[in-house]
């Protein structure tokens, strides 16, 4: 019962956390670029404003897919805080990702079409890596359950340092940060229209933003698993990781999807194999 309560609270709080992270993200980026930047709460202002706009869409499928995306992201976070099966969460997350792409493809807009195709390539790039991270966690703790990570007693980072880098790749892609912001990005200067989000506006765009916050909470939660033994250790790890993401975002430019697929698969697989071999021998 306690677990269910925790998970429910997490689902309620996740958008708040996600929104704050997005706000801090903007503020830090501004600081890195010697700008003042928007207030911390700006993402919330944006979303509320979007929610208040009158809807515009091309067909009802867009509405359907957006809601399914949101539900699946919420369910993923719920399962995570329930301490459930990582692989199952990954599959539930996939529902949202697939429907999100289906929504973009359902519009006839050429920009959304290209964006959706690129989104598919990004999914193709990060999905195997996330599965491998989960498999490596299972190899260490003997289980795919999140709850087992907490009973394991040692930080996973000691045994899975390279897998954390692999997760970093997936995190960068999932956060839509350069150089992997292929399908849609926050930097106007390197964007064709709005990529996969082109045909979403108003309330639907707000829902996508909220679902994205859930996703951010989930992937940060995954990072947190690598130092699940102490609160401060976990907090420091997350802050350092996120700051590293921001720096990477600001010092790189968007690359092509071909480059992304080759590089990330190449490095991701190499690091995974090394780390797993080391576990295997150890």
């Amino acid at each position: 019962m306690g677990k269910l309560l925790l998970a429910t609270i997490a689902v309620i709080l996740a958008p708040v956390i996600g929104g704050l992270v997005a706000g801090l993200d903007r503020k830090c980026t501004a600081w890195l670029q010697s700008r003042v930047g928007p207030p911390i709460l700006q993402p919330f202002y944006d979303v509320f404003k979007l929610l208040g706009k009158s809807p515009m869409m091309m067909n009802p499928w867009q509405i359907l897919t957006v809601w399914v995306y949101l539900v699946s992201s919420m369910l993923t976070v719920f399962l995570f805080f329930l301490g459930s099966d990582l692989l199952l969460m990954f599959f539930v997350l996939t529902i949202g990702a697939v429907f999100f792409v289906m929504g973009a493809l359902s519009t006839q807009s050429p920009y959304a079409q290209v964006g959706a195709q690129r989104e598919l390539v990004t999914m193709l790039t990060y999905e195997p890596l996330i599965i491998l991270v989960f498999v490596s966690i299972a190899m260490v703790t003997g289980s795919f359950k999140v709850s087992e990570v907490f009973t394991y007693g040692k930080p996973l980072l000691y045994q899975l340092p390279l897998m954390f880098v692999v997760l970093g790749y997936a995190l960068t892609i999932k956060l839509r940060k350069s150089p992997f912001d292929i399908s849609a990005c926050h930097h106007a200067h390197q964007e064709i229209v709005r990529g996969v989000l082109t045909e979403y506006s108003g309330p639907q765009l707000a829902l996508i933003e909220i679902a994205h916050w859930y996703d951010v909470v989930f992937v940060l939660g995954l990072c947190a698993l690598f130092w699940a033994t102490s609160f401060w250790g976990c907090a420091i790890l997350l802050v350092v990781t996120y700051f590293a993401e921001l720096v990477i975002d600001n010092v790189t430019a968007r690359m092509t999807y071909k480059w992304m697929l080759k590089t990330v698969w190449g490095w991701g697989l190499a690091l995974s194999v090394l780390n797993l071999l080391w576990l295997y021998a150890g």
Partner: protein
Amino acid sequence: MDILVFTTVVLPFLAAIALLLLRDKGSRSLVVVGAAVVLAAASLALVGQGSFEYSPKSLLGISLDGLIMLLDFALLIVILIMAVTKLKSTLVAALTAAQVVGLVYLEFFMGHGPAIAAPAMFADKLSLIMVLVISIVGSLICVYALGYMPEHEEHLHLAKSKQPRFFFFLVAFLGAMNGLVLANNLLWLYFFWEVTTFCSFMLIAHDGDETSVKNATRALWMNMTGGVAFVFALIFMQKSGVGLYLSELLKPGFSAAGAAAVIPLFMLCYAGITKSAQVPFQSWLTGAMVAPTPVSALLHSSTMVKAGVYLVLRLSPAYSGTMLSGMLAMFGAFTFLTTSALAVGQSNAKKVLAYSTIANLGLIIACAGINTPAAITAAIVIIIFHAVSKALMFLCVGTIEQKIHSRDLEDMRGLYMTMPKTTIVALIGVVTMLLPPFGVLLGKWMAIESAAAVKYMPVTIMLALGSGLTVMFWARWAGILLSTPYPKDVPAEPQPSTVRAPLVLLAYGAVLLSLFVPFLYGGLIEPAVRSSHKAAGYIMDSLNFVSAQGIFYIYPLFLVLGVGFYLAWKAARKVNPAECVGPYLCGAQATDDNKAFVSTGRANVGYQAGNFYLSWIFGEDRLSGPINMVSGVLLAVMLGLLLGGVI
């Protein structure tokens, strides 16, 4: 008991002969629908009976062993004559001759050991599951063919309908498959095995044009190599004094005899690999799509290819713990990864389905190779759910193709506007293949977790990469089906009931079967795993699948996702057409239908977008060669290592 076995195995052959003789449409429909209903009912009754052993001695006073031997030779001679006269294929002729010689040697020149008291047929839960899949899914496909074939022949402008022959092979196929999964006597199994090879050859070549015959010949010789391996396995067993029965192979401690025991097992698995079109034999299955759609559906989803994995899975306890097991896992995972990659590079819908089928069969073989109770559970789950969803997808593509005269994904954009019902059914097919909480994904979850549990690193990595690729080609297909402006005035979609009914039934089946998966597991799947592996892979905890590694929620997921989907659906229904606009085109829309925008100089510029097929990396021409080479080497290494064990 004997009446049920008779109904599932012999009745389809009798119905097939009736279909060959009765040439008018009315009696054809009557026979097919009647046979379908009787067959489905008999298969359910057979499951109700539970496991059994059965030794029919004679049919109408003729000894069955003798009869089967006679038919075996007759079949091989027919193929041999065809190979020499019609096909002019030395390869097929040589492979057939090798089997004839092998069989003659086996039957007449080898000392038969002491008679073994083993039943000629036996059914455990695994066989019964297969009978269910074959009899129900297969029958639905045959019914679909009733509506499909007249239209198919209309395009060919035949002077004389070839449907009687077509239905003869289609329905006989089901009987052969049921015989195959119920046989315990390996000579019987071999006979039915060859019948399926022959039927598939005749069905692929059905249209009679050059491509059909060429592809059919390829299917024939590839499957014939499996047949040769089968005969040699039998000779090998006879030599080492093992009785020619599956139950002999499955006796505990059989593989303790070392490599001598493993070699026939490898040969039989090799036969299964050819039958299931694993790499490097994938080309026969992708070539098989030149045949009419019901053939593709029948070959690819519920019958022929499942025979191969059935045999591999059936033998899994025998090679458990041997080197062969680990190598099969590698080989299956390799097939899963490479054929998923090939599917990404295809815009031809039938090819995508074919490659996806081979990938799933590879996954099943990988599970058989992992060989833990959990993995075997995964294999059976995938067999069941893949059959239903894939049959559905194939029938959808066939229906779509008859309407739009193309099987290219790019031509399916906005299909909802012309074929709303079929589109929804196809979407159900995609979703049940790809997403939780549906059955295929449950199987995939089991497969990855069991691979991780035994720490098969290369297998796990290949499964992870393959999964990512799978998502890519399914998701984009689902997306472009919906690519429409605001759907107003969507016309109703007329369809013959023999087409509509199987589609709708399979769509319901795909969803409802997943909904009842805990009960299916408790009633059929778990007993099947228990009987072969002495332990269950999963315990059910309030109807969720729980293992030492993890947990898969069934009903909580169905509830949350179902409610979420319902609310999403309602929100989508509330859309006001006035709120709908055209796509953003970076300029003013030029026409009402949003097909162009006004560019410089008042010129109207159209636009076009296509899928990424990433052919620079996943193209057939880029990948097929290396894949065939690597997989060929893998098979050779397997054989070499096993032979090395003997010498």
